[in-house]
Every structure is written in C-alpha cells, then in structure tokens.
C-alpha cells in the first residue's frame, strides 16, 4: 500500500527526486514524527516498545484510525464532519438497545452501522441539496445524534458482554489485535478507493475545485452525499469496536474522538481546504496521537503537565509538515 502511494506522487521511482518533493514530505511527515516520538520514548522508558505495550497502543488506535479515514474522505472534499464522534455514540447506543433486546451480535452490529450510516447520509443530503455549510450541518448533527442517543437509551448505559465481541477486542494475530487488523483493512480499502477508482478522483476534484468538477460533468452533490455516508458507516464500524472495547453501549459523548480524528487527518498532511488527501498520512497521524498519550503515561508525566506536553509535541510534529510549503 505504502509503495503505491509514493509511486503515485510523481509517476516514477526516482527516489532522489522524490526526497526533494514537498508533497512527499507532507504525506510522510506523520510517520517521521511518529518515529521521532518512538525513539525518544523508547530511550526514556524501555517498556515503551515492549510487545505488550505496542499491542495495546495498536488496539487503542484502531477506532481513531477508522474515524480518521472517514474524516479524511470528508475533509478531502473541503468539508468537515463534526458529528463523527456523536454518530458513533448513536451507533453504539443502537447496538446496545438491539443487543439488550436479544437480537444478537449480528443484527446489533448491522443496525449500528445502518443507523450511523443513515445519520451520515442525512448530513450529506442536507449539505449537498440544502447547500448549507458543512460545519453547521454536522454541528447540528453532533447535537441531534447525541440527543437521539440519550433518548433511545434513556440516558442509561447498557452493559454488553458478548464472548465474540470480547475476543475481537482482546485477541488478534501476534501483536495485532483484531480491531487493529480491521482498521488496517479499512485503511487499505480507503487508499484504493481514493487513488484507484473514478470515485476517488472525482472526490479530490470536488474538493479541489467544485466549479471545475461541475463543469466537467461531475455531480458534486452526489460526491458530497457519498463521503458523508462513508463517514457515517465508518463511525458505525467504530461504534461496534467501541462497544467491544469499553464493554458497554453508553450515550455519553465521545468528544475527544472528534478533535482527535480531525487532528490525525491534518497531522497526516491533508489540507482542510480540500482537494488533496492521503490515507497513509492520517493513519500515522492517528498512531502518533495515541503513542503520544501512551508514552507520556509511561513516563509518568504528571497529569497537569500532560496537556501542556501534548500541545507542544503536536505543534512540533506539525513543524515537520513545514516541508509541505
């Protein structure tokens, strides 16, 4: 997957030129940042790279990676999905209600994805047909989806103890937990869709220059609806993993996921102004954010100093993206 991306950048395997290319650095800045972080943390605390810790970081990253992929699709069209985290909450609550009603894991999972996808589609239709700014529509959905989650669950969490779900979130292949494997699959598929299908090209054109895309006969409205639908569906997938991870379907907001999903995308070198996108970047952006918190925790950085440290490291990591200019 990673190879294809670089080949894409300028159509030839000339590495010395590649290294001088700004776009290349933008795409890989998050990886470079991650590597620097890993080296520093490992030097300060050898447990950091222990298999156990790597495994738990990867599992912790799975949901964020999936959301970041969804967010990438939206942001590449110059939109933003502020509702991604609360749509996930909605999906989780729907899962919980179905599961509690005894409908089983399959139906519950399906309904979680369907309901989250529906919320995403509503976002898309209002943005595309109603011609309202993405920010406001998805802000409205942020609120509405958490409201729905509260109403459906009556404000109460549902404990979900399912052996299969538990295996999903606790076992895997080697250090790769199943949930991380799912995240990898999502990322690979997303990469192919973005760079190797007509839809992907039309999506980037819609983000880069909606007028030009329209003039070339691309239905930007349909593209917009599609990306929000995708974002919703992935939020639904995230919801299943979330329920597995915390063992319950809760209506409480997952605000941290919202900002982190956008941060992963932007750290991954994707411009909020649309028209450009990579999947590799946001993927490593998500890992970077997770590794940062994990490392600071391992180092025992005091709780008050952690936000300060996170802020500084995030900006330093972004400094690597300066090469983008």
């Amino acid at each position: 997957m990673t190879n294809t991306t670089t080949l894409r950048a300028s159509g030839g395997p000339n590495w010395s030129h590649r290294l001088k290319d700004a776009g290349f650095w933008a795409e890989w800045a998050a990886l470079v940042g991650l590597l620097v972080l890993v080296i520093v943390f490992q030097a300060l605390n050898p447990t950091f790279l222990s298999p156990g810790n790597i495994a738990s970081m990867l599992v912790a990253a799975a949901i964020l990676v999936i959301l970041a992929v969804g967010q990438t699709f939206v942001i590449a069209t110059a939109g933003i999905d502020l509702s991604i985290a609360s749509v996930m909450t909605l999906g989780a609550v729907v899962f919980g209600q179905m599961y509690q009603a005894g409908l089983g894991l399959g139906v519950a999972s399906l309904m979680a994805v369907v309901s989250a996808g529906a919320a995403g589609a509503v976002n898309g239709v209002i943005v595309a047909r109603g011609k309202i700014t993405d920010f406001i529509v998805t802000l409205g959905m942020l609120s509405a989806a958490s409201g729905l989650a509260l109403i459906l669950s009556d404000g109460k969490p549902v404990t979900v103890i399912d052996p299969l779900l538990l295996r999903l979130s606790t076992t895997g292949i080697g250090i790769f937990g199943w949930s991380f494997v799912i995240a990898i699959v999502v990322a690979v598929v997303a990469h192919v869709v973005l760079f190797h299908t007509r839809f992907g090209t039309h999506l980037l054109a819609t983000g880069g220059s909606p007028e030009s895309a329209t003039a070339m006969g691309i239905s930007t409205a349909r593209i917009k609806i599609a990306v929000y639908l995708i974002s919703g569906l992935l939020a639904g997938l995230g919801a299943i993993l979330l329920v597995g991870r915390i063992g319950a379907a809760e209506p409480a907001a997952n605000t941290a996921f919202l900002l982190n999903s956008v941060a992963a995308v932007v750290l991954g070198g994707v411009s909020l102004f649309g028209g450009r996108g990579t999947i590799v970047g946001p993927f490593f952006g998500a890992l970077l954010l997770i590794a940062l918190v994990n490392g600071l925790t391992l180092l025992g950085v005091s709780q008050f100093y952690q936000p300060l440290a996170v802020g500084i490291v995030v900006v330093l990591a972004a400094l690597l993206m300066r090469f983008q200019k």
Partner: protein
Amino acid sequence: MTEQPQVAEKTAQPPRDVLLSCDDVSLSFGNVRALVDVSLTLRPGEITALVGDNGAGKSTLVRCVSGIHRPDRGTITFDGARTDFHSPEDAREAGIETVHQNLALVEDLTVWQNLFLNREIVRRLGPVGLLDRRAMQSRAREMVATLAVNVPAVGSRVRRLSGGQRQAVAICRAAGFSSKLVIMDEPTAALGVQETARVEELVFRLRDEGHAVLIISHNFAQVIRLSQQVWVMRAGRCVGGRRTAETTGEEIVGLVTGAIGS
C-alpha cells in the same frame, strides 16, 4: 437580434443542417442583463466564431450552452432536440465539450488526471473498476505533446504550469473526446506563436473529422482565418451574423464597436 431575419435567410436550410440553435436566450445576474434575447445558429462540420467586447456576454452564452447556467428565458436546441441541460454533465452526455475561459482545471490534480476527468479509463475487476493510471498517463503524454512546445510532465500538478501550458491542457481535454460540438472560449489568448499555430491546426482537424467548433476570440485575423460563420455580440445582445467569406475584419470591428449599427 434584429439582425436575425437577415441571417436566417442565409442560413435557412433544412433543420438537419443546424446543429445548435439558440432562440431568444436571456439571462440576468441581479441587475446585470448579461444576455438579452440572443438568437444564433451553428452548423455541423463548420467552425463558427463568436466575437464581441469584454463583458459582451460571450462566456455567459457559452455557459448556458454547456449547462453551467440555465437561461431565464429562451430555448436552446441541439442536434434536433430541444435541450434543457440541468448540469454540465447533461451537456457532455449530449456531446458538447467546452474549454472554458477560466479553464476549469483542478489545480491540485495532475495534468493527466485533469485530462481524463470524468472520462477516466477503467479496468474492470469483476464488480470494481480500477483506474488504469498507466494507460491514462501515456495517452496524456501523447495528447499534450501535440499542442505544447515546452511540454510539462503529465504527472505534475496543474498548479505548477505556466499560463500557456494550462491553456494547452484545457484544449487537449476538450479535443480529446469524441463529441459533436467543441466550444473554445478564447483558447489561444495565453498561447505563444507556435502553440497558437498548433491549436489552429487542431481546430481544422476537428472540423475535418466532422466536429462542429464554436470559437470565441478577440483576434479578428484568427477569426477570419478559421471560421465559416461569425456571430457578433454587443452588451448582451447578438447584433449580427455573417458568413466569413462574405465579410471583412473591418466590418466585424464595426459590428463589435457599434460603428455599424444593428
């Protein structure tokens, strides 16, 4: 428009000889009456020119024909059928390719991606269609080489190209796909001498292959050189049409400036 009957005489032929016809097309933006009862016709296999001062309404008319704007009033008939394009997609489907004045390139996509935008070559793998990047890149290289002198790499993003290089890409795109009508809004404005010559060759080739071409130009020498029919716009109105063979550069200038009344 008052000119219309006069011209109609000359062009009064069986309808199969009219590819595009605009009848009383009007469009206003707020207070600006960009098009006022514009009527003109365009024959298949011919090069038609559209001239007029800046702000006369030429690009606006083109945008109506290619589905970007919908006229407030009037009808557009293409290939025998009355059209009501709701989007540029409809127009492209119907067989109209356009080089817009603002180029309509996506700056962040590469040259080859722009050339094949919404016309991508796809390899089918069962239900999924994957882009055939290699095929598109090599065809793109050929297409660009026919027009440009300092050929840009087809893998570079359009943002990096010079003014003329962009123009060449936009023209390649419109010419590269079989269509009944190719519209070019000031295609050679940014082009150098050699590139202009190549575009003129291309326009002739398109005509010879049976495409109709509508070209907008401020270069009257070029208009006389290329076209069989000239239409003149002034302040939103179509004030006249001439068979090129029967007119001169001076007469056209007169129509454009209003020295020759309508």
